[in-house]
């Protein structure tokens, strides 16, 4: 299984689901995500699983709800407008504490927008696009290999915590090809004592999200948030490059972090003490790691393909102790030169102040 193969991001996600022993997929076509569907439409029947093309994203997420109730390891995939349509369903899945993996291969927006790579669904998924108090674990891969690793990790986390996990890609990651190695298969899902599989040999299992007496709802929310605090304590993940002595710390995730890293490398070559902090989990946001990485920092740059969304978590994470600026492009992945130029200009400013 350790053969290196060249694979397109979306197909890699599909194969990762297969290797994660996910045997049920429900989805609806949308560019730039569609190859996930197409891959699984071909592969799942070969593995004895079921690919069901839902008639809409709303149906897809509710089929996921049902399949997860029935004890299956299950996934859906879509892109920004389709993910918007899933918000009610996601709120239900989170409330019902069902494991489920949701892939968002983000595209240009708002509205119909375009099919360009984008990171503009950060607020939606990281803060909560659905109604009510809940959280999604959000993973932000930055390469095709990580699309695989994070998809498989998403299944593990979603089952460990009984909570939906979103994998955040974008049009470029979904469409590009890189060499990848697939890890070993995950074991099939363990028995879920709470699943509604027919009450053979036990009392009835019920999955629902209605808590009519107010105290019941309050307790339910506290139970959920106890779990979320647990996740915050254990699952914050990040990666760092050149942070030890970084005076200018670029914070960037996903595909943007790749070019940010190239920009930082160029800055280092130009003698600028720049570094990169890459959140891998967007929720829980790795604030403690950020604080540590920013010890020498005099400026933080939030580099995103959105109009300034993650920057709020960067500000909250650094507790406003260091100024934070925004570098962004929309509709495209910026190129390393642009980031480098931005760093260079800011380095001038920073040294003037310092």
């Amino acid at each position, binding site marked *: 299984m350790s053969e290196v193969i*060249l694979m397109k991001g979306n197909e890699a996600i599909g194969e990762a689901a297969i290797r994660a022993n996910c045997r049920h997929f429900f989805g609806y076509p949308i560019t730039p995500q569609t190859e996930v569907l197409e891959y699984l439409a071909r592969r799942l029947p070969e593995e004895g699983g079921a690919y069901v093309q839902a008639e809409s994203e709303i149906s897809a997420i509710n089929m996921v709800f049902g399949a997860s109730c029935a004890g299956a390891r299950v996934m859906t995939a879509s892109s920004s407008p389709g993910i918007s349509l899933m918000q009610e369903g996601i709120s239900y899945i989170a409330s019902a504490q069902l494991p489920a993996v949701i892939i968002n291969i983000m595209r240009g927006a708002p509205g119909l927008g375009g*099919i360009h790579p984008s990171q503009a669904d950060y607020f939606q998924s990281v803060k909560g696009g659905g109604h009510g108090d809940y959280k999604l674990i959000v993973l932000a891969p930055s390469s095709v290999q990580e699309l695989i690793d994070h998809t498989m990790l998403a299944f593990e986390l979603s089952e460990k915590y009984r909570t939906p996990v979103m994998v955040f890609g974008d049009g*470029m990651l979904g469409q590009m*090809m*890189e060499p990848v190695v697939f890890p070993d298969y995950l074991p099939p899902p363990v028995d879920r004592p709470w699943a509604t599989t027919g009450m053979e040999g036990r009392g009835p299992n019920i999955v629902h999200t209605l808590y009519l007496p107010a105290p019941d709802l309050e307790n339910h929310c506290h139970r959920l948030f106890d779990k979320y605090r647990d996740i915050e304590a254990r699952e914050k993940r990040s990666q760092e490059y050149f942070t030890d002595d970084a005076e200018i710390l670029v914070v960037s995730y996903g595909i943007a972090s*790749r070019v940010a890293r190239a*920009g930082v490398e160029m800055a280092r070559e130009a003698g600028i003490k720049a570094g990169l902090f890459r959140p891998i989990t967007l929720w829980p946001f790795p604030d403690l790691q950020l604080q540590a990485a920013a010890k020498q920092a005099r400026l933080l740059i939030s580099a995103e393909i959105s109009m300034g969304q993650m920057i709020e978590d960067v500000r909250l994470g650094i507790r406003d102790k260091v100024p934070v600026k925004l570098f962004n492009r929309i509709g495209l992945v910026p190129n*390393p030169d642009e980031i480098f130029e931005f760093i260079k200009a800011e380095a001038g400013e920073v040294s003037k102040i310092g």
Partner: protein
Amino acid sequence: MKRDFVMAGFGGQGVLSMGLFLAYAAMIEGKKVSYVPSYGAEMRGGTANCTVTISDREISSPVVAHPQNVVVMNHPSLEKFEPMLKSGGLLLVNGSLVHQDVQRNDIHALVIPCQELANEIGFPQGSNMIMLGALLELTKIIDNNHIYDYLVKTFKGKYMDKMPLNIKAMQTGMDYVRKRDVKILEIA
């Protein structure tokens, strides 16, 4: 060592296949690679292009502002990508469809009559392979001795009946540039 390539043309001219071959072959030769297609399934009849990066080290950015090598198969691609080419870079132009002159003189440019060459060898669909041959010959990015092998692996055994023709087209492209006076690229 890090080399990047952009190939561009109409959808259907096989530019994505060219890029794919490059990426595959380099991967088989143990390099790090990334391949980024433009995608536009929601758009019909547009242009297609891809960016291939090949490196000894892990590839930070899969996108490049100023590619070292650009292949243009049609006119709009020339207009779009000539200005972006890195100074000192290589520009290969499909002369059969592009009738405009190259403007820059800080680059190495070569016009190749792909369609005519393809017609000559009786494989009119082979324009892209002619061009690919030319590119490989000029950049030496791939060990030419294994091309057939790489082709089979890239396309997973598809098009086996066309393989000999494809090889022939590639070689025609190689021969064509060998006969020309093009300086082999020295990247800044």
